């Protein structure tokens, strides 16, 4: 236990503050840089206080992107990322909750075989099976489409596993009570399993949304049309190494914008998530 002494309190707080500064400073620097003249950023004469170009830079980034080499407007990239993150998160949750429901509540032949098959895919991350997956997506003509961007990433053993563990904690008596109350499999799922899983769904949504939003390798392979750029991959495209100067001010603004949706999701979902945890039964 922590002793209630001024000195230990001070030390503990000092360590925490130092940690926060280390984590937050680069983010702060990015924010500051996005409001300064490009020349100031490159020359290193930029201070630690905000400049006066903020509104212009963010406006430029959102609606036209970088100018030295033409990039997709950030708004469009954010749209692409949003579609990708949402489809992946919702798709993963939908598929895994249904498969976990089947594995836990139904007795069918080879039930455990299917469960283990799902489980084994945990051992094969996207990077390992990237070539065959790419081949399949390419053969299906899904390159440069939202479908190609999202569908291969939807299948999820992790989420299935989490839902399975949660479903196993639902007491048998509750299932039986529902059976006697005349709730068939569909009704039981909709009226009881789904509402009880709400907090788990919220938590998974946060994790999976960020997972989808941060995808880099897969969009890099699957999209060649810059109109399909996601924001994380798009930032990389804005940074040029030769032939032209990088519009660092736009890059900085874009970086800040790229962080907003995940932060927003965490903040909004966390409320629901914490409420669920506090309200939870037993």
């Amino acid at each position, binding site marked *: 236990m922590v002793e209630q002494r001024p000195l230990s309190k001070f030390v503990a707080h000092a360590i925490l503050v130092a940690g926060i500064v280390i984590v937050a400073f680069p983010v702060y620097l990015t924010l500051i840089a996005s409001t300064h003249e490009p020349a100031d950023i490159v020359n290193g004469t930029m201070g630690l206080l905000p400049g006066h170009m903020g509104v212009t830079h963010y406006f430029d980034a959102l609606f036209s992107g970088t100018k030295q080499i033409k990039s997709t407007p950030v708004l469009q990239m954010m749209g692409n990322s949003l579609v990708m993150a949402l489809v992946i998160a919702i798709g993963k949750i939908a598929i895994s909750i249904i498969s976990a429901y089947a594995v836990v509540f139904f007795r069918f032949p080879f039930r455990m075989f299917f469960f283990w098959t799902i489980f084994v895919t945990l051992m094969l991350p996207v990077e390992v099976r990237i070539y065959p997956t790419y081949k399949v997506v390419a053969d299906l003509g899904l390159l440069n489409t939202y479908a190609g961007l999202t569908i291969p990433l939807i299948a999820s053993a992790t989420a299935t596993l989490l839902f399975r563990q949660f479903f196993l904690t639902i*007491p048998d*008596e509750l299932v039986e*009570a529902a*059976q*006697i109350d005349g709730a068939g499999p569909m009704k039981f799922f909709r*009226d*009881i399993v789904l*509402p009880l899983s709400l907090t788990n769904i919220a938590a998974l949504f946060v994790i999976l949304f960020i997972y989808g939003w941060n995808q880099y390798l897969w969009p890099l392979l699957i999209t060649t049309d810059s109109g399909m750029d996601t924001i994380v991959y798009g930032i990389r495209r804005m940074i040029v190494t030769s032939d032209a100067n990088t519009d660092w001010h736009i890059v900085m603004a874009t970086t800040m914008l790229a962080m907003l949706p995940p932060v927003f999701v965490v903040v909004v979902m966390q409320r629901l998530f914490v409420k669920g945890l506090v309200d939870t039964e037993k």
Partner: protein
Amino acid sequence: MAEVELRAVRKSFGATKVIHGVDIKIADGELVVIVGPSGCGKSTLLRMVAGLETVSEGTIAIDGMPVNDREPKDRDIAMVFQNYALYPHMSVYDNMAYGLRNRGMDKAEIDRRVREAAKTLELAHLLERKPRQLSGGQRQRVAMGRAIVREPKAFLFDEPLSNLDAKLRVQMRVEIKKLQRQLGVTSLYVTHDQVEAMTLADRLIVMNAGVAEQIGTPMELYARPATTFVGGFIGSPAMNFFPARAANGRVELGGGIVLAMSNATAAGEVTVGIRPEHLTLGGADGVSLPIKVELIEHLGAEALVYGHLPGGAALTARIDGETDVALDAQLTLSVEPRHIHLFDKTSGRRVD
């Protein structure tokens, strides 16, 4: 409301037989309690009636109709579970209304039934609460309410009181009994608590290792237990058992004690059963039991005296609480011949 009939009902899980044939006809409005130690198959039997377990052999009929192949929801029964099994995310109202909504009942009728049940169970002010905001006793009442609103042919209770504290258990026991009388619904009630069983039951089924040892009214079981198991299970403190030899209306307990039972026809090796409350202080001709007092438990109105017979058999006697008995004293106890039970030594069955 209806009769529930079990005909030669058996259950096996794979090769393991857990219920070896139970027959009983539960009359309309009757409350039958299945009592037995854990693992005796009492819950399995109840779950078979509910349709939550399949019936391996035999027939279960509700209202004259065999229901072996019917789904639980089509059997028109309602069940109260040990852990209440309330839907945690639904309000008390919705918990009670859920089963009715699934049956497509008219909204106004659902509302009427739920409010009426809530009034009967004194839950009216709690209808909007979630189960987690209720106490154990209130949850138990909601579980009862969920059963009542269905107006089913039969109630099935699976140890509904075992999660409550002792005081509340007694209180709820009385409430359940009153409610069952008032509604007149045929009920099957499972418990491991013999006091609960005795107080609630119109008739009792005492189960042991998958066999219905005896079926009868509580007083029948108390007065004439069919086996040593029933004798030991019904009544508290438990019946005293002594090995003995019977011949010619005399029962020899060993250590020189002989009980005269002029109307007993049993002969050979027997087990004698005597209830602690039927032992009285003071000797009487032919039925005296001398013991040395080893331990006394004062319970207020009564006292339990523990000791051993000269032959070495342990004995418990229940005597008046105000009687002054010293530790290590020699006592002579007597028992009326009509309170002596004789059982076959090997089969444990009653012999008269």
